[in-house]
């Protein structure tokens, strides 16, 4: 595997002025990204998550050459992004969920045609790419409608197509599913998986929608306060931070909270009770046995933590 993105001990400091007294201001240095090392190989689909202000966008801006790191080195497809920004531009595609590169007043197809000239894509190559993406993203019905008339989901699909027409090796996506309904989200995810699998495009995805990550990404990088706090598979992060399980029991009749060694009743709703325990301390079988010994149980189930809970715990514990 060859690395397409390499960050080696990268930091980015911003200088902010803080008011101090009536007129005096103090210069303060804030590290948005603090000593991050990261290597992403060709064809990976990586989820890059973290709370607001964690340093995600700063990282992406350094990867496109718009920001220069304060220290450390960045290499994207072997290039120094800031020095070779124009050369790099034709190797990457970028989609911001909240921005668009499409021409608002003109038919969608017009923006696509212009991109052929922006990136100097040969005409036949452009035609073939356009046909493929129009099919995959089902753009045909509104290809000739002005962009301002499109729904958010349609516009996002248009932006995805626009970002890929010049055959980029890497696609950066900043919250591509923000504001989309369930059906549109599913369609965007399906498309991204397909592009990654069939075209070998390396994808770096930042999102706050963790179901995006769970459905799509083989690898998850979590950053907070400028540090990488996890880098591994989704399953790994769940076992690492998601040690807890919850047994949900429906009793024959409502009663006081059960007392089970190693488990804690976290919620009671009539005859239903939720008991949380750590797998490392007690087994599910032991918890269930203790419950059955105290009360008559009508039904029970075991809940695994979803990634949402896991990440909430990581953010709040950090």
């Amino acid at each position, binding site marked *: 595997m060859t690395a397409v993105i390499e960050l080696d001990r990268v930091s*980015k400091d*911003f*200088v902010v002025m803080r008011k101090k007294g009536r007129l005096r201001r103090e210069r303060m240095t804030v590290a*948005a990204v603090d000593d991050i090392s990261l290597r992403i190989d060709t064809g990976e689909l990586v989820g890059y998550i973290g709370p607001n202000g964690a340093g995600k*966008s*700063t990282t992406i*801006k350094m990867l*496109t050459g*718009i*920001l*220069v790191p304060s220290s450390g080195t960045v290499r994207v497809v072997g290039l120094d992004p*800031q020095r070779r920004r*124009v*050369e790099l*531009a*034709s190797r*990457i595609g*970028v989609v*911001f969920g909240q*921005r*668009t*590169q499409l*021409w608002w*007043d*003109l038919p969608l197809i*017009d923006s696509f*045609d*212009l991109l052929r*000239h*922006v*990136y100097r894509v040969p005409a036949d190559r452009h035609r073939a790419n356009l046909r493929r993406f129009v099919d995959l993203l089902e753009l045909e019905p509104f290809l000739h409608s*002005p962009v301002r008339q499109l729904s958010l989901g349609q516009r996002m699909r248009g932006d995805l197509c626009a970002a890929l027409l010049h055959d980029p090796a890497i696609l950066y996506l900043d919250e591509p599913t923000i504001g989309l309904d369930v059906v549109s989200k599913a369609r965007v995810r399906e498309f991204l998986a397909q592009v990654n699998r069939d075209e070998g495009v390396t994808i770096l995805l930042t999102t706050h929608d963790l179901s995006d990550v769970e459905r799509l990404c083989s690898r998850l990088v979590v950053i907070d306060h400028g540090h990488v706090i996890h880098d591994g598979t989704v399953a790994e992060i769940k076992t690492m931070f998601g040690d807890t399980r919850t047994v949900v029991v429906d009793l024959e009749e409502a009663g006081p909270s059960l007392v089970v060694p190693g488990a804690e009743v976290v919620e009671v709703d009539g005859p239903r009770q939720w008991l949380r325990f750590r797998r490392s301390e007690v087994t599910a079988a032991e918890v269930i046995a203790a419950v059955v010994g105290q009360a008559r149980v009508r039904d029970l189930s075991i809940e695994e933590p979803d990634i949402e809970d896991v990440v909430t715990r990581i953010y709040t514990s950090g």
Partner: protein
Amino acid sequence: MRLYWEVLRRGFRRYSTYRAATLAGLFTNTVFGFLKAYILLAVYEQRDVVGGFDATDAVTFSFVTQGFFVMLGAGHLELADRIQSGDVVTDLYRPVDLQAWWLAQDLGRIAFQVALRGCVPFLVGSLVFDLDITSDPALIAAFALSALLGIVVSFGHRFLVTLTTFWLLDYRGTSQVATVVTMFFSGMILPIGFFPDWLEALARALPYAAMLQLPVEVLLGKHTGSDLLALLGVQVLWAVLLLAGGRVLLSAASRKLVIQGG
């Protein structure tokens, strides 16, 4: 070059989609043409010639400048909105020259406007007044060149104003000041020959005259021979200076962005 031609075409098409706005603008421009013409004619009740213009020149000037009004545009470019909202980041990812991109788009916009808004106020005005422009084909050609240069000077100025958004984070103030100053010194409100001598001298020393007053003077046949060449030379000079200033400011802006972040 092909790319910027394509951008120009899209600029043209974009503005052609706003039909109602175009018609409303056309109506307003024409009405203001009459307003200006009647105000200036009141002046000519007292005098035969003001600042080298006779009454016919002044009325013709009124209608021609109304046609030009839209070409001067607002004090800023739409790029200002993109800088303010941060959308400009997506422009910087692309392998394109930002200044050339917006110049091409502005030329496309003007190419559309010139076809309608440049001609209609003049034609309507000529139904009521005796309008007189040069009939010399060489001077008409010189006017076309001078008008194009005027548009580039105007673009160069608006591009500079627009880029201040990177520092001020809001363009409305600078844009409003720029609009008022442009209107006044370009001859849009009053031919600059109507100003007191010192003010006229000042106006002619500024780039604004090169946007509007000078091209219209060419159309009225006020300049010939070496005088005309000197005038075009002044326009070229301003165009080059303002565009070069725009490039310097743009690289400073992207450096600021690169160093300080969005």
